[in-house]
């Protein structure tokens, strides 16, 4: 609390110790009229009878009896203010009339404060503990409340208080209805307590309300699982979308794909390190800076790989698989040699931390950012493939290499660029994945199998298939998890994919062709 405010309130607080009950009552109202939340603890202490006046200078303290003496606390700052003998202080006496005045003054300070946040906080505090004495005050506050959202919280707080009070059953039934419509875990525990404490009609109503709330919670739980599933799906999409280009469009089985993701993540790490040492104020922009760099690094490595190795292996997909696996080992070991085998710390920019609640759904900003980002990458890739000359040439080369070459397209160059694009996208995915996973040399390995599953499940050569495949595998995985456990859910998904491939050997959205050996 600012000292200036304390200074303003000090004479008013000290005035509490002077005069008769009526003077004190008037003084309480003056204090309440300041609307300063710092006055609330003073009034509470007064209501409890803990407020004392020091006889020597008339200063007012919260005092606690220790042995024969009193330990004094400053009522405004909460700081210790030494000790005083039994005869040096005298208690500020309160009667019932004064207690009522204090309670309504407190209500005015909190529930009827001019600040909406204070009012909401006060109502929520009562909701958590329940206070039968506050019912009258809540009624007044609800009548005066202009914000319907806060009024609803107040009504709920009143309902909790009613359930704890000795009011007639009809009031309690209404309260149960209010709590049932609020729902959520906290209402559930209050209703359970109410059902246990009461009997007859109220108990029946409470049990009914518990069933309703549990049903709602189950639906919200399902929604939460779907949300987690979409979040996992977007991670899979980011990991797999580059592969959808190199494997799906070009037919190159790139086992080093995971290492492109890893390179992207390490690029993020290097960028953040550089920012930390040179320009700390840029930290919130570190991911934005890392994105193009990760694309360039992974893309360049991709082009080198394509020109150096893969271009000699076209038409021999199984050999490509082996060579790229070898590359992935070399890249992993290279990163391990340079950066060490342990996890590297990649920070989260401030705008990505935190969470919001929609209903009973908790949505963390970093997951939300990754979902949005993955869809943005997907959209950008779609536009590149459909709307740019490069995309046109890519599709031409993959559909009919000889004809494309005859039309003057430099197919080797397009091959290199396509591979670079797929690798670069994987690097971008790595920037996002560095936010939710450990940045270690093994980062890529953990995604490579999942990525292949997504691409094969979705249908090779079809980006929409990759999107649908990633999202559905993510959601199915998370929906199974509550019943089967995380590991078993994953096993089930793998078995499902194996069986699915039997049924549709070319994936969910297969490209139709007339060739026997498509």
């Amino acid at each position, binding site marked *: 609390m600012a000292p200036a405010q304390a200074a303003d309130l000090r004479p008013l607080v000290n005035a509490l110790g002077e005069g008769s009950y009526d003077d004190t009552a008037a003084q309480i109202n003056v204090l309440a009229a300041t609307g300063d939340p710092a006055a609330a603890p003073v009034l509470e202490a007064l209501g409890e009878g803990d407020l004392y006046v020091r006889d020597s200078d008339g200063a007012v303290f919260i005092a606690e009896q220790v042995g024969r003496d009193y330990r004094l606390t400053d009522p405004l700052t909460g700081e210790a203010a030494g000790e005083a003998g039994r005869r040096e202080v005298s208690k500020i006496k309160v009667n019932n009339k004064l207690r009522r005045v204090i309670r309504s003054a407190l209500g005015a300070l909190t529930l009827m404060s001019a600040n909406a946040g204070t009012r909401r906080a006060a109502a929520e505090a009562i909701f958590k503990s329940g206070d039968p004495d506050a019912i009258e005050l809540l009624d007044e506050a609800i009548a005066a409340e202009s914000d319907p959202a806060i009024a609803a919280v107040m009504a709920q707080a009143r309902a909790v208080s009613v359930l704890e009070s000795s009011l007639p059953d009809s009031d309690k039934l209404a309260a149960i209805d209010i709590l049932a419509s609020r729902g959520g875990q906290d209402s559930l525990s209050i209703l359970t307590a109410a059902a246990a404490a009461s009997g007859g009609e109220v108990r029946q109503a409470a049990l009914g309300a518990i069933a309703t709330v549990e049903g709602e919670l189950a639906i919200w739980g399902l929604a939460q699982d779907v949300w987690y599933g979409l979040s996992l799906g977007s991670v899979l999409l980011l990991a797999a979308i580059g592969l959808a280009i190199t494997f799906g469009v070009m037919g190159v089985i790139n086992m080093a794909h995971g290492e492109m993701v890893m390179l992207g993540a390490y690029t993020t790490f290097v960028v953040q390190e550089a920012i930390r040492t040179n320009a700390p104020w840029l930290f919130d922009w570190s991911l934005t800076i890392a994105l193009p760099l990760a694309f360039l690094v992974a893309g360049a490595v991709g082009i080198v790989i394509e020109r150096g190795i893969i271009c000699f292996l076209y*038409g021999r997909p199984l050999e490509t698989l082996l060579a790229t696996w070898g590359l992935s080992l070399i890249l992993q070991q290279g990163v391990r040699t340079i950066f060490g085998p342990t996890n590297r710390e990649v920070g989260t920019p401030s705008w990505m931390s935190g969470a919001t609640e929609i209903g009973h759904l908790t949505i963390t900003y970093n997951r939300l950012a990754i979902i949005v980002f993955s869809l943005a990458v997907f959209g950008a890739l779609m536009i590149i493939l459909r709307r740019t000359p490069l995309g046109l040439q890519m599709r031409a080369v993959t559909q009919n290499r000889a004809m494309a070459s005859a039309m003057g397209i430099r197919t080797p160059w397009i091959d290199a660029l396509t591979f670079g694009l797929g690798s670069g996208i994987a690097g971008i995915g790595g920037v996002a994945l560095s936010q939710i996973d450990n940045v270690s040399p093994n980062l890529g390995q953990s995604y490579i*199998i999942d990525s292949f599953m997504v691409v094969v499940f979705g249908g090779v050569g079809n980006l929409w298939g990759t999107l649908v495949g990633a999202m559905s595998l993510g959601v199915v995985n998370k929906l199974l998890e509550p019943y089967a456990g995380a590991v078993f859910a994953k096993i089930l998904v*793998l078995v499902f994919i*194996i069986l699915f491939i039997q049924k549709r*050997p070319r994936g969910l959205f297969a490209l139709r062709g007339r060739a026997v050996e498509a």
Partner: protein
Amino acid sequence: MILARFFADGLDWRAGFVIAVLVALAVAVPLLNLYAPPDSPFHVPTYAVSLTGKYLTYALLALSVDLIWGFCGILSLGHGAFFALGGYAMGMYLMRQIGSRGVYGNPELPDFMVFLNWKELPFTWYGFDMFWFAALMVVLVPGALAFAFGWFAFRSRVTGVYLSIITQAMTYALLLAFFRNNLGFGGNNGLTDFKDILGFNIQADATRGALLAASALALAAAFLICSAVVASKFGRVLVAVRDAESRTRFLGYRVENYKLVVWVLSAALAGIAGALYVPQVGIINPSEFAPANSIEIVVWVAVGGRGTLVGPIVGAVLVNFAKTWFTTGALAPYWLFVLGGLFVAATLFLPRGIVGTLAGLRLRGRHAIPAAAEAPTPNPQAAE
């Protein structure tokens, strides 16, 4: 009589040479280990016996992969699963042999079950106290899994890359499953701390020698079987499937049946390799299912020479010898560079592997083994 003909067809001078070497190895190494005095130049130290035995089981595993990849064009990235399943079957037998000598002294339950507070043996462990049953399971379990997997996959005409990827999914799923404690196979730690096999102390030099001999003889037998299969009419259809699957089908062959038979045979061989591997290294754990292991097997075959039966044996021994040499020395951090480089170099510069290239140089294609003389995948379209 027919069987004798079948094997005689596969037995040319080359196969005879390989088998002779293996039999000589089976006899000589244990004898030199047991009877040559430690200071004589002919003495074979015990660790070398175990190491050689391990290499031989790897060679058998590589041979099983080559049978399907080199001669039928099925690239399995999950053969480590069959190897590990055979190993687990043997490991379960060895666990039961520990009896009451375990840490907890329970005569019935292996230590990890006592630790998990299990009261009785799960039904999956029934019968594994008998060697013949375990030996049967070593072949049957991988064989049955391969049969079920191949039955569906080949009938649905899942080929090429797609098949490779779902075999990888299979071994990955098994990896995850075997990591779970409640599956009842020791979870993360696997099965270890074996005491004896068929009543002989598993640590004794004589037992190690016998295991090496068994591995060498198993490899020789498998080599003979594979040579016979490849040289037979059946084997020629396999090569036809490898080079032009659709054309073979159009000619009236039931391609899926040919593939299924050789696939199950290969899985059984891999299972036997695993069963011989486990007592020699003394442990089996879920990491054997790791997809990376299965890919490594394929590299042994590629380096040695795909489509030749000698190649995978040479490749497995060479690569693993290099691995041992590298990872035990100061060069350990660079092993992955070497292995990775080996992958790349073998595919770029030695598409036919060491043995294939040598055979090609020496015989100029005239009298070479049919498969070795050709490029591994003559028809690029067929492989896609």
